[in-house]
């Protein structure tokens, strides 16, 4: 499945995420509260800005969307109730649906497999792998 581009891509992201990017007034509260905020590039508010400026391809090409833990603090504290976690998931879904994985299950080592609760693997592969 080919990933669409431009406005068509933005529409798909909004439809899959159920969010309206123009609702965001760029206050930055999501970035301020994100537990991964220091490492995420672009952080949530900047990511939404890219969509507002009709540059969705840049967001899809970024690392940041693969670092969301779906903790939902962003959407919970947002004064406009915009849920960045769902936007990140929509972006990831579009890439994953074009059969491109971010996390390769084969790279997980046996000791890790032994030790880490399987809930983590299932969740990780659901979010990041095809």
């Amino acid at each position, binding site marked *: 499945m080919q990933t669409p581009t431009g406005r068509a891509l933005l529409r798909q992201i909004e439809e899959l995420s159920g969010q309206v990017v123009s609702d965001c007034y760029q206050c930055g*509260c999501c*970035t301020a*509260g*994100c537990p991964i905020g220091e490492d995420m590039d672009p952080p949530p508010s900047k990511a939404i800005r890219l969509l507002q400026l009709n540059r969705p391809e840049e967001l899809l090409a970024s690392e940041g969307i693969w670092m969301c833990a779906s903790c939902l603090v962003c959407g919970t504290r947002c004064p406009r109730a915009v849920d960045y976690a769902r936007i990140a998931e929509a972006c990831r879904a579009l890439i994953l649906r074009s059969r491109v994985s971010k996390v390769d299950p084969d790279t997980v080592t046996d000791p890790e497999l032994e030790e880490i609760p399987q809930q983590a693997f299932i969740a990780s592969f659901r979010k990041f792998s095809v």
Partner: protein
Amino acid sequence: MKSEVQGPKSETRNPKPRVGVFVCHCGINIAGTVKIPELVERVGKMPGVAVVKDYKYTCSDPGQQMIRDSVKNDQLDRVIVACCSPTLHETTFRNACAEAGLNPYLCEIANIREQCSWVTEDKDKATDKASGIIRTVLAQAENDQPLESIVVPINKRALVIGAGIAGIQAALDIANAGYEVVLVEKEPSIGGHMAQLSETFPTLDCSQCILTPRTVETGRHPKIKLLTYSEVESVSGYVGNFRVRIRQKARYVDFDACTGCGLCMEKCPGRAESSFERGMARRKAIYRLLPQAVPNRPVIDPKSCTYLTKGKCGVCAKICPTQAIRYDDKDTFVEEEVGAIVMATGYELFDATKLGAYGAGEVPDVIDGLAFERLLSASGPTSGEVKRPSDGKAPKRIVFVQCAGSRDSTQGMPYCSKICCMYTAKQAILYRHRVHDGEAVICYIDVRTPGKGFEEFYKRATDDGIQYLRGKVSKIFRQGDKVVVWAADTLAGRKVELEADMVVLATAVVANPDGVALARKLKTQIDTHGFMTEAHPKLRPVETLTAGFFLAGCGQGPKDIPETVAQASAAAAKVLAMFGSTRLTHSPTVAVVDEEICVGCGNCERTCTYDAVKVDEKRGIAVVNAALCEGCGACAMSCPSGAMNHKNFTKKAICEMADSF
């Protein structure tokens, strides 16, 4: 919304009334959709229509002249203007008719704009509907009777509820014009929140210094009857003729015997949280709000007084040189009669503990804007030295958080509170005046500086080295003896973690809950946020839809001091305009009872929201107070016997209107 027009008495000249219909183009608003020539032709054929004219802008002078001329020359008995909504020009055209000698209540409006040309693009449908509307109004007009406006006497005395700067200004303006004002304030002394401020933006005037001349003048004014520590219990009556019941709370201090010397306050052992100091200090059980209190008389708070709760102590009574303490004091009631009421009940700040992630109530060094004002104030609990509530040390770094609960549809109020950007800049500047090596960081979403000198004031803040960080704060918590703030720098695109000694939250401005409760009791309109609703958002900002009630100040919406004072003077002007006229008139299109049919069931009394109709127990029939009746028609609808009718909107007329469409 009712047009109150005084006009000459006129009889119907002919047995079948001659109706003139004037169709307005309203530029292209109507003519762009409704086919005017076709409509004119159809109207001309309607029975009873003696003359039909059309004009581009009927509300203009030539347009009105056209109507006046036609009334005279075509001997019209009824006038119908097919144009925009009656809320706009019903009064205009009724006045025109009156000037031409036709009773104004024989002029009706057919709304073919908001109800027709503005709701469809289909020209045929619009023309059909316009024709139908005119036919129904024709049926109404034929049933109309000439009516006279109801005259209402005016008691030229005013009541002002709330003695913050808005109430004070309104009271002074009305009193200086020579009328008596009853000024009611629920706190023991006047001045409102302005008395709590340190300095005001953008001039950095000392708040007390500019306020106290007004409060002193108010306290001394021969025309102002000041009732402090009092609350309005109920209001009955109608515009020009209100009866107000006011509760004067027990002060436990004889007002006249007390000299305000303050000895009682020195010795009192009782303690309670001081609401004036916003949680930054405690006060005595016998107290006054501030040293410059007007009136300068303390009150005893019965909940924290050892004598009143446990029967022990009594030091104040022993020490008072004029024996002014009265432990057996009770609430008393006074009745006042006034003609106009100004509501100036003011604001409160949003409860910061509701913002769970901000730590208010948990972290002692996280406080709101008014609490910080008290720390800045020279007459405050720290004599103007900025100290941390936790350990009394001077904070070296303060983070100011704007939009705490404002512009927030999920946890707070969705609106912008208007004053916070300015007062935060002011507080940061003042903090740096006091603590020269102090660092101030302001976390903001936008900086709104719309007033005179405001943008320059903002520049003054940044020139002083105050750092503005663009990003709404997500979380505030304590770490050791520091306060950590999770903020963002959206302009640089990253998360920022700040360590501060103190955090000041610019919390949302909300309507004073006591004001909201009062509005509900008095049945004046408030919006979903509790702010009092003005009669029209653009053109009638100080009146309400309840005749005789005016508004001023933050009770109507967040605003700063200059706007508050302007609005208060405007409300006073409206009151003075009312007092300046010889009589007050009220629209005559009111409910009327057919006393032969009425059985006194009381449905109408129960339905009426204006308290305008009551069943007279002795006579067993309903009686309408025409001065209070707003002509809404609800009672007529609820009347099971058909006794209740509505002048010029009778059931007969309505049925004929419905049939004729």
